[in-house]
């Protein structure tokens, strides 16, 4: 960045000073999230030393694994200027579908069917938003309610008692880490890889920056939009399998309730603006981690849930404030 002073026009002292000033500020804002995580970890460590153990960190990773698995594709969707509020309900539907189909279809069949159902839900959202051109918020608010109803209709009573061979996903470890953690790490790597290495990465962001320009310049705006929704649906199905393998039940009424809000919180914490157009997958990972750590640490400190809820809300507002500050500066 040799020439950020360009827009200021005036060569000489003032512009240069401004530039250094701004770089310093940018750095501070960029460091805010990692710093918050570090300080929070230190705080919890002091209050409850058990927090800083490998086992507890692994426990956090298991706790956030499903949230992370949804948040990564959700982040890409938001970067493209779209949103999917139906992820929580889709999670419930997928959980119910899996639970109901273990017996007739066997584990492999049930898993495949679940992944197909998730993807199809995403496709439907995507077609309505990207091909028909309906408002993302309204469409997915509709599917949020509709799919929750569908899940409860399919399974009025909680389903439980899944095959043991399936439940191992929820507790088994491979190479020292839980399978759930491994799945989460794979999803993170996929997200980072797609955005950093593949040609589709900048195209996704381009949609969020200027959809009209993206269309005129010849990007496949419809296909990219539908694909992102389908991917989100697919990974919600993955997250559903992860969740029900851990709790060994699929209650249609409560499974995944409010997940859309947790995901949104995590992604916004990760610095992706609500209007899309920019963002980094790694920062979203930090956002999810911060939420997970907060929940874990507050429980270790025996803080009542109400207080932990309030803290989460407060953290999000502070993050939004930082963003406004940054926008004002530039």
């Amino acid at each position, binding site marked *: 960045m040799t020439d950020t002073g360009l827009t200021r026009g005036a060569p000489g002292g003032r512009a240069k000073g401004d530039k250094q000033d701004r770089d310093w500020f940018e750095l501070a804002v960029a460091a805010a999230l990692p710093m918050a995580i570090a300080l929070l970890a230190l705080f919890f460590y002091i209050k409850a030393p058990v927090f800083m153990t490998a086992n507890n960190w692994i426990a956090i990773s298991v706790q956030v694994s499903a949230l992370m698995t949804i948040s990564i594709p959700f982040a890409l969707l938001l970067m493209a200027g779209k949103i999917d509020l139906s992820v929580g309900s889709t999670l419930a539907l997928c959980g119910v579908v899996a639970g109901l189909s273990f017996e007739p279809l066997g584990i492999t069949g049930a898993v495949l069917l679940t992944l197909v159902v998730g993807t199809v839900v995403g496709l439907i959202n995507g077609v309505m938003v990207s091909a028909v051109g309906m408002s993302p918020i309204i469409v997915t608010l509709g599917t949020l309610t509709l799919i929750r109803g569908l899940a409860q209709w399919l399974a009025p009573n909680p389903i439980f008692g899944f095959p043991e061979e399936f439940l191992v996903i929820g507790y088994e470890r491979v190479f020292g880490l839980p399978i759930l953690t491994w799945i989460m790490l794979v999803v993170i790597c996929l997200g980072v890889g797609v955005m950093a290495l593949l040609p589709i990465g900048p195209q996704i962001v381009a949609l969020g920056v200027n959809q009209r320009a993206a*269309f005129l310049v010849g990007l496949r705006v419809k296909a990219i939009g539908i694909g992102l929704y389908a991917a989100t649906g697919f990974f919600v199905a993955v997250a559903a399998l992860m969740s029900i393998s851990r709790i060994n039940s699929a209650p249609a009424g409560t499974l995944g309730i409010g997940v859309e809000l947790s995901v949104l919180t995590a992604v916004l914490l990760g610095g992706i603006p609500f209007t899309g157009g920019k963002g980094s997958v790694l920062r979203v990972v930090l956002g999810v981690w911060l939420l997970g750590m907060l929940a874990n640490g507050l429980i270790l400190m025996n803080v009542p849930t109400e207080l932990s809820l309030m803290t989460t809300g407060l953290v999000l507002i502070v993050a939004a404030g930082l963003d406004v500050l940054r926008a004002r500066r530039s």
Partner: protein
Amino acid sequence: MRLEVNDLRKSYGPVAVLKGVDLAVEAGRVLAFLGANGAGKSTLLNCVSGAQEADSGDILVGDASLRGLGPRQVQDEGVAIIYQHFQVFEGLSVAENIFLGHEIRSSGCVDRRAQNAQARALLERLGVDDIDPRADLGSLGVGERKVVEIARALRLKPKFLILDEPTASLSDKEAKALHEVIRQAVANDGIGVIYVTHFLDEIPKIADDVTILRDGRILWTRPVGDVSIADMTDAISPDALVAGLEKIPFQADGPEVLRLEGLETSFVGPIDVALHPGEVLGIYGLMGAGRTELLECLSGAAPQSGGSMVFQGETRNFASPRAALDQGIALVASDRKEQSLFSSFAAVENLLVPHLGRAPLPRMLRNFSREGIEFERAARRLNIQPPNPRLQGQRFSGGNAQKIMVGRWLVDGAGLKLLLLDEPTQGVDIGARHELYEALADVKRKGSTIIVASSDATEICHLADKVMVLGRGRQVALIDNPHDEELLIELAHKAEHGTEEGVEGGAPQMEVVQ
């Protein structure tokens, strides 16, 4: 009382746009302010209105300096500006638009009755009695909307009023009415007016003095009685534009690249034209003539509703810009900010975004060093300043950003066959404009066909082999480049206003001179 600009200077990075402008308007007079696109008009207006800050120099209203003030404070100092783009809102009534942000209240509520009455008084003072203050703005024509904007500006009792191309989208009749309104405002309130326009023929009707801005400096200021239209044309269009692109031959006997037969869209048509490799078609017309619609149809961005388009021997009807791009047709849209630039993207990504994942770039994994090389090449070819691949798109000056937009399609191996350009030099300074023209010359030499639409007759005459004039969506002329700006302007105006004078279908239909 006078509004004075003293030695105002403004640069964008290395590009000096205003190079010491001196200007004065007396209260009670109308100063016509002329200059070619890129001469620095909008920069000067922005500096006066407080939207941008000048590097040096001063702006005075009476004794008060406007330097360093924001738009709101400038307004408070008595300088109102009305931009070319409408800033009135449909869904609100005329009176509500006039009082927007300064509502009349009585006991906390908006007093509609008082607003309507005052709005009516304001409009009557301007000699307008056929606009109902209670009417929804959406029911008004463009001319009436301009009047509403003027009424709103005058409500704050400014001492000076700046109008940026107020008649750009108005018919002759509406323009005449608007002139009357402005005359009234000057006569009643003694305000001073800076009137920016491209239409030379309206200047004797509205202005007292004429000022020409050329290449960031005031060329001269004279009383309107002392200048002819020819004087102004000469002064505005720089001599440097004399050597045109049409000196470069094209393959007139080559295979037809594009043939349009009765092509129609919902607004434009029928269009008939045939183009050869390396040929440049200029499309001239006033705002709203259908230039953009035609280009969007050719590029697949807007549907074709009739006739046929034969591209390289095959009948095509592109469903999307992507489909057109696959055949080698690319569009550089007008309105860079809204339609082509990705403001937060680095320059290299802005340049290459259409090519990511397709030839000549790798399909799967991105090759960052290759992308860097492509940017370097484009930066050298088009003299992109600064040649910094990581700089965000929004940080480039208008001209350099536009170079990146055009540079997108000059990437070697992108397979460009037909380049469509809509107002390619809007908001582009003279230097960058020449570099863009040079790049287009290169495209022409390599045998790609170009269609360039512009509201700048000088630009059309400079670039085109063949000129099509559009008016109200219809093709009113297709002629060999006449090198006669006034002829084009006349044709376009006749086409636009012809039907009002009852000459339905009587627009001049010129034969193609091959």
